[in-house]
């Protein structure tokens, strides 16, 4: 069972308390009704599914109930870092080369 650090509770808590909520940093357009079919397809259907570093949303379901973002390596299943919802993609990741 993974330990996940909730950036709101500022504590590592067991995976059981959390729920994955899909890829992060996919913003809903303020003018969504006016979006082209292609843009809507990208927004709603297309996900990156990388082998390696992924940015994804998690919810501390059975804790503070907040949504937050996490950077995880899909190969090692290790959480590299977590940060609050609304914060930008971290430019530098701790402990990751490049």
């Amino acid at each position, binding site marked *: 069972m993974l330990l996940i650090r909730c950036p709101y509770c500022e504590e590592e808590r067991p995976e059981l308390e959390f*729920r994955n909520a899909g890829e992060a940093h996919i913003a809903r357009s303020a003018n*969504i009704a006016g979006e082209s079919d292609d843009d809507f397809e990208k927004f709603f259907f297309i996900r990156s599914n990388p082998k390696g570093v992924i940015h994804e949303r998690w*919810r501390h379901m059975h804790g503070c109930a907040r*949504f937050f973002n996490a950077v995880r390596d899909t190969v090692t299943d*290790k959480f590299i870092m977590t940060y609050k919802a609304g914060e930008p993609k971290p430019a530098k990741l701790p402990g990751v080369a490049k």
Partner: protein
Amino acid sequence: MSGAFRIPGAGRLKQAKTARFSFDGQAYAGVEGDTLASALLANGVHLVGRSFKYHRPRGFLSAGAEEPNALVQIARDDARKTPNVRATVQELYDGLAAQSQNRWPSLAFDVGAVNDIASPFFSAGFYYKTFMWPKAAWKSLYEPKIRAAAGLGVSPDRPDPDHYAARFAHCDVLVLGGGAAGIAAALAAAETGASVMLADEQAEFGGSLRFETGARIDGQDGFGWAQGAIAKLKAMDNVRVLSRTTAFGYYAQNFVGLVERVSDHLQNPGRELARERLWQVRAKRVVLATGAIERHMVFADNDRPGIMLASAARTYLNHYGVAVGKNVGVYTANDSAYAAAIDLKKAGVNIAAIVDLRDNPTGPVIDEARALGIEINFGRAVVRAGGKFRVTSMTVQPKNGGGERTIPVDAVLMSAGWTPSVHLFSQSRGKVAFNDETKRFVPGTYAQDCVSVGACNGTDGLAATVDEAYAAGAKAAKDAGAKAAKGTKPKVDAGESWSRGMLGAAPGAGPDTTVKAFVDFQNDVTAKDIRQAVHEGMHSIEHVKRFTTNGMATDQGKTSNMHGLAIAAETLGKPIPQVGLTTFRAPYTPVTFGSIVGHARGPLFDPTRRTAIHPWAEAQGAVFEDVGQWKRAWYFPKGGEDMHAAVDRECVGVRKTAGLFDASTLGKIEVVGPDAAKFMELLYTNPWEKLEPGRCRYGIMLREDGFIYDDGVVGRLAPDRFHVTTTTGGAPRVMNHMEDYLQTEFPHLNVWLSSITEQWAVIAVQGPKSRNIIAPLVEGIDMSDEALPHMSVREGKICGVPTRLFRMSFTGERGFEVNVPADYGQAVWEALWAEGQKHGAVAYGTETMHVLRAEKGYIIVGQDTDGTVTPNDAGLDWAVGKKKTDFVGIRGLARPDLVAKGRKQLVGLKTKDTKVVLEEGAQIVADPKQSIPMKMIGHVTSSYWSENCGRSIALALVAGGRDRMGETLYVPMPNGVIEVEVTGMVFFDEKGERLNG
């Protein structure tokens, strides 16, 4: 008394009490402290099972968890029958009853043994190749036959009466393995004050010190030192010592699963003791001290009962005081078997000969064996074993060929060397590295905060092991935040040491032979099978493994993997590291389902939710149905009514007078804040800004893709406060959906969301007399149609307690939903029921609720919709705000497919024969005479007998349905085709006059 093969004065069970037991109905005596294996061996019993595929007679290979052969069935009573228990692990208790497995009719005469004679037909990949065709025969013929013939043991056929405990634990240092290395590491860590857990799978700690007579630590014999050290550790507050506890899985972030066998060794465990306890441990540091496992020699007929690992024979002698034979042969490729021969010889057992594959080895154990007068043959191989139910001889030949010599024996001890137990290290995602010199895989690159010490790390020799382990234990504690150790390192005065050995097939079982030289005993895989797999194109070790099933039995190849790999590598002509090792997977040894399930079974499997009114419904004899975790009253049968009669009566009663319905399970969310209306505008398709406080509206929630996600009536209590209802099953996900948008897409909105499902009990009172029933109990609410019209809500009091009184209807009748604080739910229900009795009201359940709403064409999300239905498809376009510029799903609704013609639309269906009730889920076709497969144009979503309409009614999703009004369609069923007419969705009171009736 406890067996003819028990040697007086030998072993550690000298003063133990007698324990009687039976094996295949035959009574035997052993002593307490025995395993089933040692007790049987003490009685001279070697034959304990039949092999999986060839049904060959099998005996004990080992004295531990790696045992592939000696699997038995243990039955405590009719419900407690455990198959595949390793006799080498099962501790003896008085009255233990064991049965052999995989034989019929008896162990000595087994019909299945014909497979052994027919073995040329059962080679590697046999199942894959033979049962390919005809295809139809697989299901009817091959599979049932194979399933009947295959499998080990018999599963219990009754519910498990035992209970299983579970514990979570955290510690600084978790030490896995309680041999010399584990104990030394635990001592070092414990002395720093760090919290330490030490676990070992055996009943007694000591590991290989159980058999190593040459070990002396701190002036004591090795095993005695271990017991003293364990007693010291047990007395420390910061240490938890777990025996009979197997670490079976190493998961992410130093999370280790262990199973503790609490009572399997006890004669009468009693009800209060759990059978097993699952430990889920999170450790800051893990020390792996899992030891090494001896390998057998791969030669012809090496599976005959009486042929076993040298260390096993030594354990039976030195720990249990049991000789495995009277005239014992030894076949080895390393030094450790000599120690076994020496111990047995000193105990008075004749050693027929030692056969050593090595040419001219030297060393103290060889000198000692020679000094004891044991015949030693270097550079020779055992090419064959004689005997069937027990080995009778070993045939020896110079390893490069030459004259044979057959030596009579009643047991053969073998050792091909030792395999480090890197299972847990590998499970932790560490990468093993091959040491070419010692021919073994040892821990290479670590992936987690753990360290391997002693034999599992490839460290040879007791002194080096204790040094390494003690230092690692201290470092692990320090890394976990503890201070430096202040104890003293155990001093090793003497120890045993060996390494090397051989991998793969021995002479006489080489590529040019067809003998049965077993690599994997449990799955009956021979050296020849592995070569054949390579020849047939399996070049990856993972393919070889699956094709031959080598290492895939319940012992997971603890003794066989390295041999199998070496034979594959040799056949491929590649070095071993290039062929690679198969993946180690949890569990290390089999784990019962019981220990994983723990208490989560029966009523504790999933929580049961009951409403405040549940006890009343129960007292009325309601029949309940499960809706998610809820128990809901389904119908209320009176005087022997069946379901149909009860539902018909309830349906008629509601429309004639009134009915009371427990709607408490309805999801309820309060949306509060200055921006509550703005938030509602974004989450629902309907307009909300202009909804007057005190009024209600039927809301539809979409997902971003434009499909209906949920629906419900929403009341606006105040400009900044909405009381939202959701479907019963949808409540949690609707709340999650709302929170998701509020927190991440619309965080600028000043809104709070609260789940209030369980705060309010909801009593629906529906029917022409509903107002008459409620009005006498209500204070402070004007109940007139002018003051409280359909789709409105008021706050006030009922029976003296606060209420949110909704005027709304899910039946098409004049109706109310009385929300009261849940604690008052039953009291208010009883007051309303008493009032209702004056008017002849009925109590109704969910079935009647379903029928009544279907009579009115009201949909149920999740029944009439399935996640691909738009508001338009459901005929609910009127609920989508046309002037709105944004709401979740607005863009999805405009997708080309969602606005295309010919979409499936919700319509009513009337069967031509009014008595026929369609089956929900039944497919609909336009032409019943077309050939199969027919073109299906829709399906039935809801279907009931309507007593109020005097006919059956149904709702269906039909392609282009609203353009088909009056058309005849067909529902082909196994018993014939049903003719239906497409109609509107409202079957009763089409004008809706009864809402105010």
